[in-house]
């Protein structure tokens, strides 16, 4: 029950909870953990996923339409925690569902559900005082996103206020797969290193074992999201956990055990 990257790079696996359904999402999380994921990011579906590309937008829309809400995601978080005590689990959400739940109630519920940390996409470090206080009080790791366009002063604030790991965005823009890793990525990771000893995970556009290997040359972990969500989209629900497990094991082909 901690965010520990046992490999170089570690693997963070994102998917939208509730797509295709909650029970399948739980099984997919277990399959991903059993096949090499260090950290699972459980995405809370949201009606307006501003930072996401078309793949995660569609998954979010399907999950919202099925009625999946933050409270439901907390339930499967707790089930995943019970089944895999050692895995890292991050709750990934847009801000509004958390505000509506109540920030303090959410922090308590997330801790009760066994989450290690929280990533709120549209929570900016400049406005995060109360959120950070509650995360600290409840022993949850706040993870912030760092973009290549951020000046050093902002990267410093992001690095200093993150716990668990810092999530570096490989390129400007929204989530989604691409054929090659952006040239921006390495420079951003190097700039972040000046401000933190935390592991640095690189995401946005990481989708193949080759990408994962390339990320391992300069960052501590790779975040894979849209590629998994796209796989889930085209796989029947009953086959999805196995397909996700196979995909994650294949990604580990780009990983060397430390």
């Amino acid at each position, binding site marked *: 029950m901690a965010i520990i990257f046992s490999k170089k790079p570690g693997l963070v696996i994102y998917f939208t909870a509730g797509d295709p359904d909650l029970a399948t999402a739980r099984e997919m999380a277990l399959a991903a953990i059993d096949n090499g994921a260090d950290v699972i990011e459980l995405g809370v579906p*949201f*009606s*307006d996923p*501003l*930072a996401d*590309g078309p793949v995660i*937008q569609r998954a979010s*829309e399907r999950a*919202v339409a099925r009625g999946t*809400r*933050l*409270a439901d995601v907390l339930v499967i978080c707790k089930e995943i925690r019970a089944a895999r005590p050692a895995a890292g689990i991050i709750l990934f959400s*847009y*801000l*509004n*569902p*958390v*505000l*509506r*739940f109540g920030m303090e109630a959410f922090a308590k519920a997330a801790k009760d559900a066994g989450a290690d940390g929280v990533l709120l996409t*549209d929570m*900016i470090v*400049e406005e995060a005082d109360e959120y950070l206080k509650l995360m600290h009080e409840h022993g949850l790791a706040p993870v912030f996103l760092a*973009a290549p*366009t*951020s*000046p050093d002063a*902002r990267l410093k604030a992001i690095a200093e206020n993150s716990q668990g790991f810092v999530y570096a965005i490989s390129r*400007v*823009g*929204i989530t989604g797969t691409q054929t090659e890793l952006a040239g921006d990525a390495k420079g951003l990771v190097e700039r972040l290193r000046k401000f933190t000893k935390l592991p640095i995970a690189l995401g946005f556009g990481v989708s193949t074992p080759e990408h994962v290997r390339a990320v391992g040359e300069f960052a501590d972990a790779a975040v894979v999201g849209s590629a998994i969500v796209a796989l889930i989209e085209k796989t029947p629900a009953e086959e999805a956990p196995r397909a996700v497990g196979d995909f994650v094991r294949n990604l580990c082909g780009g990983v060397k055990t430390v």
Partner: protein
Amino acid sequence: MAALLELDQEYAEAQADPAFHAELDGLLKDYCGRPTPLYFAKRLTETLGGAKIYLKREDLLHTGAHKINNALGQVMLARRMGKKRIIAETGAGQHGVATATVCALFGLECVVYMGEEDMRRQELNVFRMRLLGAEVRGVNSGSATLKDAINEAMRDWVTNVRTTFYILGSALGSHPYPTMVRDFQRVISKEMKRQILEHEGRLPDVIVACVGGGSNAIGAFYEFLPDANVALIGVEAGGRGMALGEHAARFAPNGGGVPGVLQGTYSYVLQDAAGQIAATHSVSAGLDYASVGPEHAMLHDSGRATYTSATDDEALEATKVLSRTEGIIPALESAHAIAEAIKLAPKMGKDKIMVVNVSGRGDKDIGILTRELDLGGETASSR
């Protein structure tokens, strides 16, 4: 975030630069046609039998609505910043047309995001934008209206942030946008104040404006904020009724609007009990949005302004009333403000003064009006 900080800084520098204001004021006058008239609506006043009603004629501006005030200001900022590509969102299409217009004026590339539902109901404006050389990109996610167009414009902006300037059309989004849009629309109330003093020698008792995101309303209210005796009334879209999904009245008690964060703004947001953003409905595309400018939220909470709503039917009826009493066909958005005037003016004494901001003209709505208003067979004598 870095781009917002850069924009904030550039905007502060522009605000302090007399040359920036001189160029903007010159274009507002010679290109857009400012100042717009403040017109005493004699027949409307007589018909309603109460307060004296003045109309602020933003509908007479170039491109047909107040949106050009802000589009022009922001495009000048884009030029200062050396950005060659402009993007915008649009609901009713008036902001899209205004942005396409200023891009044509300065020879800049222009991409406008518009919900496909809005493209269908504001077809004329889609054609105008294309004629002006803009690319109109349809958005079919969510409810395919203004909110979804803003999502897509923001996604474009974060992806192309180094080369692209996002001209946001409403008093929404992350800082500095709401402040910037308000400042560029403030000219409405500046002129209004001077003009009403010329006409009446005193300030009005009430100012009425429609509120979607809230740019025309904040522009019409702003100079009067210190004048406590001037009541400020914002009119939201009451749609087909108060059930969630049927309206866009964010401030209506029990309407489903509570404080939250949408698209980088903390304000009142129509949402379900779990914080998912609600669908909205209005006959007017420009008011059909789940949140509202944060400055309006502040004015609502402080009680300085009050917010009410007009239904689709009331707005359609108001369109007909203004057309036939004054020969002015208002935009369906502005018709919501007229609808409030129709309700309120008769309750006020004849010595009272009301100013209604006619934020745009109704030509763009002829398609909707043709479907919604049954004028067939009506003759002069049967009216």
